[in-house]
């Protein structure tokens, strides 16, 4: 059977592209690099999607107007790279939830445990892997051919047209249109090493090891125009004891604002009390990536133990700060000095005006300390003391290919490829240049998957 639309990738954007192309009547073939049980790329670790809506419902607690989403989008990082495409994404996001439901998605009723995102974000029942399972089932019913364990190693070109994809097992798969929805290159430590040097070896990758950016590289080599910051990635603090790849949500560390963070030398290096979640959540991956050895240690004491999610591997614990530091392999005296100086600066900050609360910045700050802790500052003085080692956990990369409003991949010479479309992380740099907006990666994947699938089918079927 010949292929109208070839979809490269197996995550959210790929499945949405495939479903959208199949809806338009195309014969669709999807190549997923991972084996079936690891299918779904980074999407299998996602949890929710951010779409504009005028009224709340069973799954969102209130309205989230398009204008507000647009503002939120402008507020992250340096704002959208392409204002027009950002606008389009926000507009199109309105119809996304209904489309998802029609293609098999189930939703979780808005709960208290939905991370302050209950108004803006819809939560997938069971998370991203469950969503992808539903999509794969729907795709199967729609006649989409899915091939697992199939890595695309090369795209074959005739002029500006991609005529076929070559796979690692030596096959040549011709197709009328090609949708590249194969993610970024966050799992390619050698590529990250081009920008980060040796440090990249100290990174953890939160998604599967398959995201090596091979297809992105093929497109760039074929003359695709770039979008998104080249050395940019989104990273959070993860447990250093976690696996190098695919640790996902379970290894993230929530302890940081409850105590202090020291580096390999036992010194503080960044304000642990800045801002509120999720911005703080997103900044620590990079903070740690910039430290020697790409490692840091969150320390807290008995006063706050139990008030945040326990780390998956359990904390290290000891009766004194020195002892704890030595358990971690740090210089006990240096850490004790850091804690002493921190406690003095907390005292200097004056008596707390409010009770210690994590629900909002509480204004309890240190005085005369560099760097300061500008909220939730309280003495570390109640044994036992606790610590976890942390590393940067890279979630996704920003560098991708530039696209038109029909998801066609642009070329550096100003034109577009004849039959190549892109959706998802591989083109998210058009919309998110830097920065992070929870659940918006899935919005981009779904909005642009729908466009790419539809346009690819239209191109193939004429």
């Amino acid at each position: 059977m010949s292929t109208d639309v070839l979809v490269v990738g197996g995550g959210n954007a790929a499945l949405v592209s495939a479903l959208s192309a199949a809806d338009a009547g195309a014969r669709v073939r999807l190549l997923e690099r991972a084996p079936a049980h690891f299918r779904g790329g980074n999407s299998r670790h996602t949890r929710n999607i951010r779409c504009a809506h005028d009224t709340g419902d069973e799954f969102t607690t209130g309205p989230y107007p398009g204008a507000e989403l647009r503002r939120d989008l402008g507020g992250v990082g340096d704002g959208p790279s392409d204002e027009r495409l950002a606008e389009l994404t926000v507009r199109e996001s309105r119809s996304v939830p209904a489309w998802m439901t029609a293609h098999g998605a189930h939703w979780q009723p808005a709960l208290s445990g939905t991370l302050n995102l209950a108004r803006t974000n819809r939560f997938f029942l069971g998370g991203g892997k469950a969503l992808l399972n539903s999509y794969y089932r729907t795709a199967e019913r729609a006649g989409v051919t899915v091939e697992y364990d199939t890595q695309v190693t090369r795209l074959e070109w005739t002029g500006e047209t991609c005529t076929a994809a070559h796979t690692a097992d030596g096959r040549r798969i011709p197709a009328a249109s090609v949708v590249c929805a194969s993610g970024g290159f966050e799992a390619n430590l050698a590529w990250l090493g081009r920008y980060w040097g040796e440090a990249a070896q100290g990174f953890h990758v939160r998604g599967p090891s398959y995201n090596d950016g091979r297809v992105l590289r093929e497109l760039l080599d074929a003359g695709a125009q770039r979008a998104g910051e080249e050395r940019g990635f989104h990273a959070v603090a993860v447990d250093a004891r976690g696996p190098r790849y695919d640790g996902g949500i379970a290894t993230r560390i929530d302890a940081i604002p409850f105590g202090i963070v020291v580096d390999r030398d036992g010194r503080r290096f960044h304000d642990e009390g800045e801002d509120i979640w999720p911005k703080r959540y997103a900044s620590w991956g990079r903070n740690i990536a910039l430290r020697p050895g790409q490692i840091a240690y969150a320390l807290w004491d008995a006063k706050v133990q139990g008030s945040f999610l326990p780390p998956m591997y359990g904390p290290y614990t000891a009766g004194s700060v020195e002892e704890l530091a030595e358990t971690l392999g740090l210089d006990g005296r240096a850490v004790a000095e850091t804690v002493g100086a921190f406690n003095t600066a907390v005292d200097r900050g004056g008596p707390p005006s409010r009770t210690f609360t994590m629900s909002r910045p509480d204004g309890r700050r240190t005085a005369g300390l560099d760097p300061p802790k500008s909220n939730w500052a309280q003495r570390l003085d109640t044994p036992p003391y606790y610590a976890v080692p942390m590393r940067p956990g890279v979630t996704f990369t920003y560098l991708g290919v530039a696209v038109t409003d029909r998801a066609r991949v642009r070329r550096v010479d100003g034109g577009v490829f004849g039959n190549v479309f892109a959706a998802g992380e591989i083109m998210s740099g058009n919309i998110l240049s830097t920065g992070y907006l929870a659940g918006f990666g899935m919005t981009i994947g779904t909005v642009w998957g729908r466009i790419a699938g539809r346009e690819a089918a239209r191109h193939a079927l004429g």
Partner: protein
Amino acid sequence: MPLDDLFDEARRQLTVCNSCRYCAGYCPVWPALELRPAPERRDITHLANLCHDCGDCLSACMYAPPHEFAVAPPSVFADVRKDTYRRYVWPRRAPGRLGTGIAFAAVCLVLALLSRLFTGRWFGAADRPGDPYEVLPHVPLLIAVGVPGVWALAVFGWAALRYWRDIHGRLADLFRPRAWRTTFVQAVQLRHMEGGGAGCEVPGRRGFHLVLLYGFGLCAVSTTAAALLQNVLGAQPPYSWVSVPVISGGVGGIAMLVGGTGLWVRGGGSGFLWSLLVLAATGMLTLLLRETVAFGPLLLLHVAAVVTAFGTAPYSKFVHWIFRMLSIHHDNLER
């Protein structure tokens, strides 16, 4: 797996679950886990028995095997439940398949001898076809079924009390009618098997289970109705085809066969499922062939199945509903 290892493994997996919480919408197990950041043995036992084994969490889990975190709550919960079914009944030792088979054969033999002793015939029902008391008079029949029945009820009651003390504590909370109403509605609908709207991972499993459950209920209605007809209204069996005992028993028996077979095809048979199928099949045959010479032997076979089922119920998966109901009740009380 040794018990300590089993609970350690459950704890290891649940620590990953507590760090993720994506499954919160599937069933009450996950919100209940959030209340237990460091689950003890009794917490794990409660969660395992609250689990209805729909499998949605496993298929949604990005950490399911072959991921190195190897998170598979349904199977670890199933193993914990096996421990529960052992630990709370007395005596703890369960008869194996062979033991149950031998017991069944022995009961058949004893009933046949009793029948011969009281009626002087070998399974004959000469005068009134379909009359059970022509095969075995009322009182010996009542004793044969009643002794294991009362035994089973006593073991159930004792198990329920001990379980409740372990997972909840306050005995007074067993008498909370409003919470019980919620619990009962959730239980008879298998609400917690719906996966929060996603449905059970094995299509049809919940449906077949419901059919089996209601079939079993109808058979209980049939027996009760027959007892009322005989002892209150003085009407002796056999009852007409359009009487309450025959209709409820007939529909119930068919439902048990359909539900049981469905579950067996979907999920593989446990010894408990087999005994229910034997119970329903012998009951149905007794009813259908009650006007033939086969009636006598079939009735004895059915009564022997009932006696064996009562006698072994506390040591089979039959007990699952007791612990599950109590865990649902505890869950309703704690939120």
